[in-house]
């Protein structure tokens, strides 16, 4: 005989869960009592939103399902931003929430909220458990759904009486069988042949690789394929890391803040091989002119992504790794497209990303110093805004799953808690969170958590006393009317010190490297408050709705 709470904890352990991020409350008391002497590691965050982001960071860094736990009502609602973030970026997490007892459901009881209703649009699936006997099966299904196919968040809402009820635990089925859920992993042979032929016929092919490559762990296959055929690769924000940054075929990121050469190549290519991407508006700019001369091939495990935003000539539904392996096995030798590669090399040479060097403290310089110091052997997490774009542009990533950022939802406050989660996934690697002074203040309370558990997250705040990205748009498109984007100065080191965390304020470029070294050598968490040029912009930039080769802030062509 077991309580529901015990069944829950044992089910989590059966799924291989080691660490969960959570915050206790009334209706999860029975679950917390079970956690008290369980071998599961529970990290007490300071706000439930951070629990969801930490589970997400854990999942992105490890490739395994992350788990968070919150109480009913406000606790559950505080998870929502984190769940939506995971949903937009296809991150497998299981969110556990407490709920009022079943006899009070729907009565507006204390701390009741309809969290399955609220999260329906931002979860891959969710459950309200009505019977303790279903709990074991539901947990198994939830992990299966979260982690397979196109991954995503799954929420399980557990009423208090379901946790306390004592039952004879029914056997959990060996295999999950859901007749409405059968992801396609293997690509259609004829479509794969057609794709290979389309690529062989092309003069100016480009690979456009996204988060799907990272999720599918297909980076090696991708680089192998591109190298054998000599096809330049551009990655989305989510795809960064799938090819080493300094690989000769890598053109960096495309889109709104992409490199000029990637955007030129997309505009001029005659074959666009799209892999695990979704033609997001931040990538395509004006869709009509995006790769307008190209035959488009698209691999995705989610059929709904194919043809959603842009017509596709050769669709292939399947897992990126499986499809690329099939393509590699069917590959026929054909000559490299030398003229095209030469053109791309020429663009790369004449349109590099700019890094100002006028003696001021520039964020691009800080990121490049960080990149040199860490040499790709670190996990870099970012917040959202200018800090995120500078990092994406200037840090040299060498491995998949070492770049963690909120792409689709663009969640400020994501980075710090996600960095905590990433540490538990990869305790062997240093973890840096690149933040802005705006973003860091959205979850700054997590300094309590990193101090409490000595989580060695290094926070690099690019402090310009502005909500920088919005300010940039105001400068460029709203006549410099800085409406509510200026932030008064904050002494972040003093805040860190109050939590018992070391930190340093950096005001000139000579002090950047020593500060980064001190942070890296420090055993625990560390805060760097970089006082950067206040009105630095992220360039190049494609204005909203423009074609992606119409960039501002680039080099003359």
């Amino acid at each position, binding site marked *: 005989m077991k309580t529901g709470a015990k069944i829950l904890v044992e089910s989590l352990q059966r799924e291989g869960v080691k660490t969960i991020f959570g915050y206790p409350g009334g209706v999860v008391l029975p679950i917390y009592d079970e956690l008290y002497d369980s071998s599961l590691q529970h990290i007490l965050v300071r706000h439930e939103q951070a629990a969801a982001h930490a589970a997400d960071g854990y999942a992105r860094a490890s490739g395994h399902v992350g788990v968070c736990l919150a109480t009913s009502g406000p606790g559950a609602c505080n998870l929502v931003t984190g769940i939506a973030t995971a949903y937009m970026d296809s991150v497998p997490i299981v969110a556990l929430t407490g709920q009022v007892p079943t006899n009070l459901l729907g009565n507006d009881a204390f701390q009741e909220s309809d969290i399955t209703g609220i999260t329906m649009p931002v979860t*891959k699936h969710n459950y309200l458990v009505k019977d303790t006997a279903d709990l074991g099966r539901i947990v198994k299904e939830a992990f299966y*759904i979260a982690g397979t196919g196109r991954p995503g968040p799954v929420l399980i809402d557990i009423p208090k009486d379901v946790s306390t009820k004592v039952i004879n635990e029914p056997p959990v089925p060996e295999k999950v069988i859901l007749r*409405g*859920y059968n992801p396609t992993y293997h690509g259609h042979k004829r479509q794969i042949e057609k794709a290979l032929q389309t690529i062989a016929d092309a003069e100016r092919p480009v690979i456009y690789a996204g988060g799907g490559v990272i999720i599918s762990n297909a980076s090696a296959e991708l680089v192998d394929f591109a190298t054998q055929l000599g096809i330049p690769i551009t990655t989305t924000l989510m795809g960064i890391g799938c090819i080493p940054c300094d690989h000769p075929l890598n053109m960096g990121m495309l889109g709104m803040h992409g490199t000029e050469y990637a955007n030129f190549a997309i505009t001029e290519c005659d074959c666009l091989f799209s892999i695990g991407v979704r033609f997001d508006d931040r990538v395509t700019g004006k869709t009509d002119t995006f790769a307008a001369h190209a035959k488009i091939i698209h691999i995705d495990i989610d059929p*709904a992504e194919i043809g*959603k935003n842009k017509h596709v000539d050769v669709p292939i539904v399947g897992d990126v790794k499986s499809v690329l392996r099939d393509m590699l096995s069917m590959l026929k030798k054909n000559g490299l497209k030398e003229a095209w590669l030469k053109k791309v090399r020429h663009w790369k040479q004449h349109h590099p990303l700019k890094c100002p060097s006028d003696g001021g403290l520039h964020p691009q310089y800080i990121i490049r110093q960080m990149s040199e110091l860490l040499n790709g052997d670190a996990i870099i997490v970012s917040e959202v805004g200018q800090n995120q774009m500078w990092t994406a542009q200037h840090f040299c990533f060498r491995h998949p799953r070492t770049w963690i950022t909120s792409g689709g939802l663009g969640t400020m406050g994501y980075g710090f808690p996600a960095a905590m989660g990433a540490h538990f996934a990869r305790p062997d690697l240093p973890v840096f969170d690149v933040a802005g002074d705006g973003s860091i203040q959205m979850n700054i309370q997590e300094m309590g958590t990193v101090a409490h558990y000595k989580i060695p997250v290094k926070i690099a705040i690019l402090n310009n006393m502005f909500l920088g990205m919005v300010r940039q748009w105001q400068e460029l498109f709203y006549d410099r009317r800085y409406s509510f984007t200026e932030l008064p100065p904050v002494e972040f080191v003093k805040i860190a010190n109050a939590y018992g965390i070391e930190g340093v304020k950096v005001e000139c470029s000579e002090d950047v490297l020593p500060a980064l070294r001190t942070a890296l050598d420090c055993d625990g968490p560390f805060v760097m408050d970089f006082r950067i040029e206040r009105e630095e912009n992220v360039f190049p930039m494609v204005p909203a709705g423009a074609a992606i080769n119409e960039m501002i802030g680039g080099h003359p062509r």
Partner: protein
Amino acid sequence: MKPHTLSILVENKAGVLSRVTGLFSRRGFNIESLAVGPCEEPDMSRITIVVIGDDEKIEQVMKQLNKLIDVIKVSDLTNSERVERELALIKVTAELGTSRAEIMQIASIFRASIVDVGAKSLILQVIGDTDKIDALEKLLRQYGIKEFVRTGTIGILRGSKTVSSLK
């Protein structure tokens, strides 16, 4: 842009209807009509939805529906030979000795049945496709429709084919 009749086989579980309809509103599709009920399998239900859109939009909505875990199968009946029916109950003003006879005549032409006779009104029950019911409503309007209640469209393929055999 034309109406498409989607036949959606779902798990017979709590909350499934709101997952399906929520998806329509969230992705900006207008539901023209909706009918839900049990089907040949005891643990499944069938939802029939009529939605207006071009082929690409309909394809996208079908793909999104297929992603719902509780949705077992989605079929578009629009391009197949099929039977489609709606049922309507129409309460028409009909004082004794006035237009009653005319209304009853119209009813018989439409093979509608009179299911209630009151002192001042009649209730007609009619079964047919959308156009037939629209036509009857239009004709009856001149007499004064007090209330008009109509089910969503349901549809079934002609011959021995079933929606499960559709692509």
